[in-house]
C-alpha cells in the first residue's frame, strides 16, 4: 500500500521519452502514497501538453505549472488537464494555480460523472467531505464518455481545444480478450498520435485509465479494494470486478509496458499484473461492506485510537514476557532457549511502530486533521504488526489468553477498516459458568508438575514444557478471589468470546495495578443480570484510572452488555449489565 518514493522506471521531475512513443516526453511527479495528493504526470506530445492528475497540493501544482509554462513558451502547445477520476486529492491543487487553470491556454477533461461532480461541487463523489477539503466549482471543457453510459457502435465527435486545435474523438467498446469489454474513447490528433481512455469504474463511477504509447495511467485501480478506500462514496464492487478483469486482460495482451499508478511508484506491467490479481481477489471478498462516509471514518478513527492504546499495552507486555523468559532461561544456563524466546518478537520494530502511531496521532490532533488519515495510519501500523506477529510460536511459550486477545485485537480493527462490522455472535450462555471458566483459565499453570516430570526423558518435550511453564504466569496466582454466584446460573445473551475477553481485560487491569483481592458477584432481576468485579488491596499500585477506557466500553457493547466503573474505598469496581435470554 505504501511503496517508497520510487521512480525506477521513470526518473521523477525529469523530462524523458515515453516508452513506446519516441516523440513524446514525460515529466513525472511521484509521491509517497497517501490520501493528501496523487502522483502527477505531464506528457508532451507533438499536438498538446497532457497533464494527468494535477494532484491535491498547491506546492505540487506550482512545480507542474513551472514545467507547463516553460514547455508552452517553447512549443506553443495547448494544455489538457485530464483526471483519472475526480477525487479531490487528484485535482484540488490546480485551483489556486492559474497556469494550470487558464481557459485561454488549457482545458479540463474528466469523465462525464466526475465532470458533473466537479461542476456541482459534490462533496461526496469527490471525497471532499471525507478528506475535509472544499473546492470551488470549475468548468469542465471536455466531458469524456459523455454521450451515454455504454456504447455498442463506433461514434465520432470533434473536440475543440485552446489554440484552435481540433481533435477527433472516437468511442467504441474494446475487447482485450473474448467476452471481456471495456468502454473506450480514443482522442485522435492530426499528427497521427492518439490518446486512449478506458472507462474503469468501481473505485469511483468516473474512473478511467489513460494510455499514451505503451504506458498506462491507471489512477487508483491498484488501491480500490484496500481497507479505508473500498466503500468510499461511489465505490461499486461489481463495477470494480469488471474493470479489474478488463484491465488484467489488457495487461496480459502485451500492448502495455509501464503502468503509472495514481499513488506510489511506477511499475512494470508484469508487476502490475501480479498486483491486480491480488486486488481482484480482495475485491471479490468485499461483499456487503459499509459505505465509508465521514461518520464511519470518524467512528473508525475513534476505534483506531482505542485499539492502539490496548495494542500498545498488550504487545509491550508480550515482548516483556518473552524478555522475561529469555532472562530466566539465561540464568539457568539454557542459552539456546533464551535466544529462542528472545527473538520471537523484535522489540525495536514493535516500539518503532507504536511510537510512529503515537507521533502521528499527536500531530493529527494538534492540526485537527480529518479522521480518515488517522484511521489509515492505524491500519498501516496494525497491518505491519499482523504480518510480523508469529502468533503460533509465541503461544507455545506464553499465555494463550494474551496471544489470542492480541490477535483478535489486530483483526478487529482490520475488519472494521475494511468496511465490515467486527463479528459478534451473541447467544444464550450460562453467565456464571462463563465467569468461572475465565477464572479457572487465569488461575492454573499451562502444564502441571506431573507433565514436566513425565517429559524428562524427552529433551525436546522437556524444553518446550519448561519454556511454557516459565512463560505462562497465571494472572490470579497469589490473588484472593471470591465469586458470589447466587443460587442459579442466569442464561444471558452475550458473545461468549468477547465477554470472556472483557472480563480478562478487567481482571488484568485490577491485578496489574495492584489489587490483591478480587470479589466477583452476580445479581439478577427479571430482565438483566449484573456482574460486579471489585479489586482491593495492594500497596504498589494506585488502582486503574477513574474513567473506564473507551476500548472496554466498546468491547462490552459488542459483547452484549453495558459497563461502568467506580472508585471504592481501597479499590475499584467494574459493573457489567447484560440482558437475560428470553
Amino acid at each position, binding site marked *: 500500500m505504501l511503496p517508497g518514493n520510487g521512480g525506477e522506471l521513470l526518473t521523477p521531475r525529469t523530462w524523458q521519452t515515453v516508452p513506446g512513443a519516441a516523440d513524446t516526453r514525460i515529466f513525472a511527479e511521484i509521491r509517497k502514497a497517501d490520501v493528501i495528493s496523487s502522483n502527477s504526470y505531464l506528457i508532451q506530445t507533438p499536438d498538446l501538453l497532457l497533464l494527468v492528475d494535477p494532484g491535491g497540493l498547491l506546492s505540487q501544482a506550482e512545480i507542474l505549472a513551472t514545467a507547463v509554462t516553460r514547455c508552452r513558451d517553447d512549443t506553443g502547445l495547448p494544455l489538457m488537464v485530464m483526471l483519472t477520476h475526480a477525487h479531490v486529492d487528484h485535482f484540488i491543487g490546480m485551483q489556486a494555480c492559474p497556469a494550470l487553470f487558464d481557459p485561454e491556454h488549457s482545458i479540463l477533461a474528466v469523465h462525464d460523472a466526475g465532470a458533473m461532480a466537479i461542476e456541482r461541487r459534490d462533496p461526496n463523489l469527490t471525497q471532499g467531505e471525507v478528506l475535509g477539503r472544499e473546492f470551488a466549482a470549475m468548468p469542465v471543457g471536455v466531458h469524456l464518455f459523455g454521450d451515454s453510459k455504454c456504447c455498442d457502435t463506433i461514434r465520432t465527435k470533434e473536440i475543440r481545444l485552446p489554440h484552435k486545435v481540433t481533435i477527433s474523438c472516437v468511442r467504441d467498446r474494446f475487447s482485450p480478450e473474448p467476452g471481456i469489454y471495456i468502454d473506450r474513447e480514443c482522442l485522435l490528433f492530426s499528427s497521427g498520435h492518439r490518446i486512449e481512455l478506458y472507462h474503469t469504474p468501481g473505485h469511483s463511477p468516473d474512473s478511467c485509465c489513460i494510455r499514451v504509447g505503451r504506458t498506462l495511467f491507471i489512477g487508483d485501480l491498484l488501491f480500490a479494494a484496500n481497507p479505508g478506500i473500498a466503500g468510499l462514496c461511489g465505490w461499486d464492487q461489481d463495477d470494480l470486478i469488471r474493470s479489474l478483469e478488463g484491465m488484467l486482460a489488457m495487461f496480459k495482451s502485451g500492448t502495455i509496458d509501464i503502468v503509472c499508478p495514481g499513488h506510489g511508484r511506477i511499475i512494470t506491467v508484469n508487476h502490475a499484473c501480479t498486483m491486480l490479481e491480488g486486488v481482484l481477489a480482495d475485491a471479490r471478498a468485499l461483499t456487503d461492506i459499509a459505505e465509508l462516509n465521514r461518520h464511519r471514518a470518524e467512528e473508525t478513527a475513534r476505534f483506531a485510537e482505542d485499539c492502539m492504546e490496548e495494542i500498545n*499495552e498488550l*504487545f*509491550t*507486555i508480550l*515482548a*516483556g*514476557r518473552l*524478555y*522475561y*523468559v529469555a*532472562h530466566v532461561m*539465561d540464568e539457568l544456563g539454557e542459552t539456546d532457549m533464551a535466544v529462542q524466546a528472545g527473538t520471537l*518478537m523484535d*522489540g*525495536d520494530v*514493535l*516500539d*518503532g511502530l*507504536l*511510537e510512529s502511531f503515537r507521533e502521528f496521532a499527536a500531530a493529527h490532533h494538534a492540526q485537527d486533521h480529518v479522521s480518515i488519515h488517522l484511521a489509515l495510519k492505524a491500519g498501516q501500523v496494525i497491518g505491519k504488526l499482523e504480518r510480523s506477529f508469529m502468533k503460533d510460536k509465541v503461544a507455545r511459550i506464553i499465555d494463550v489468553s*494474551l496471544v489470542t486477545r492480541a490477535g483478535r485485537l489486530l483483526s478487529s480493527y482490520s475488519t472494521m477498516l475494511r468496511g465490515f462490522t467486527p463479528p459478534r455472535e451473541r447467544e444464550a450462555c450460562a453467565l456464571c459458568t462463563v465467569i468461572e471458566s475465565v477464572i479457572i483459565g487465569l488461575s492454573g499453570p499451562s502444564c502441571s508438575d506431573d507433565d514436566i516430570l513425565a517429559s524428562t526423558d524427552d529433551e525436546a518435550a522437556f524444553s518446550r514444557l519448561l519454556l511454557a511453564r516459565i512463560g505462562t*504466569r497465571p*494472572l490470579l496466582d497469589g490473588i484472593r478471589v471470591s465469586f458470589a454466584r447466587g443460587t442459579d446460573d442466569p442464561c444471558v445473551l452475550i458473545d461468549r468470546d468477547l465477554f470472556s475477553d472483557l472480563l480478562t481485560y478487567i481482571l*488484568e*487491569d485490577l*491485578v*496489574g*495495578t*495492584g489489587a490483591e483481592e478480587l470479589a466477583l458477584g452476580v445479581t439478577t432481576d427479571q430482565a438483566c443480570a449484573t456482574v460486579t468485579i471489585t479489586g482491593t488491596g495492594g*500497596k*504498589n*499500585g*494506585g*488502582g*486503574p*484510572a477513574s474513567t473506564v477506557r473507551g476500548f472496554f466500553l466498546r468491547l462490552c457493547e459488542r459483547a452484549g452488555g453495558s459497563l461502568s466503573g467506580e472508585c471504592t474505598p481501597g479499590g475499584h469496581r467494574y459493573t457489567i449489565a447484560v440482558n437475560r435470554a428470553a
Partner: protein
Amino acid sequence: MDITTTMHGGATVLAVNGRVDTTTAGDLESAINSRIAEGNRRLLLDFGGVTYISSGGLRVLLATAKKLRNDGDRYALCRLSPEVHKVMKLAGFTSIFSIYASQDEALAAW
C-alpha cells in the same frame, strides 16, 4: 524524559520523569551504566514520574538486573504508576525485581 541522580548513604537513586520509550530507553541505560561504572552498585530507580514504558525500556531494566547480581549489590524500583506497574506485573517482571511504594521504604529494606 529526564533523570535526577541523588545519593542516599551508599545508595544511588535515579528519579526518572517522562516516557521511557524507543527514543529515551537508551538514555536511561546510559545513565544507569555510568552510575555502575562509577562503582555505585546499590541502585534504586524511582519511577514516580514515568507514565509509559516500552519494550525497549523493559529490556533496559532486565539488562541492569543482570549487571547487579553480585553479593552486596542492590537493585530495586519504587513508586510505579498504575500503568507501568500493570505492564511490569503482567510481563512477569515483578517476580524479578523488588518493587516498593516509596524511596524510604526501599532504602529501609536495604
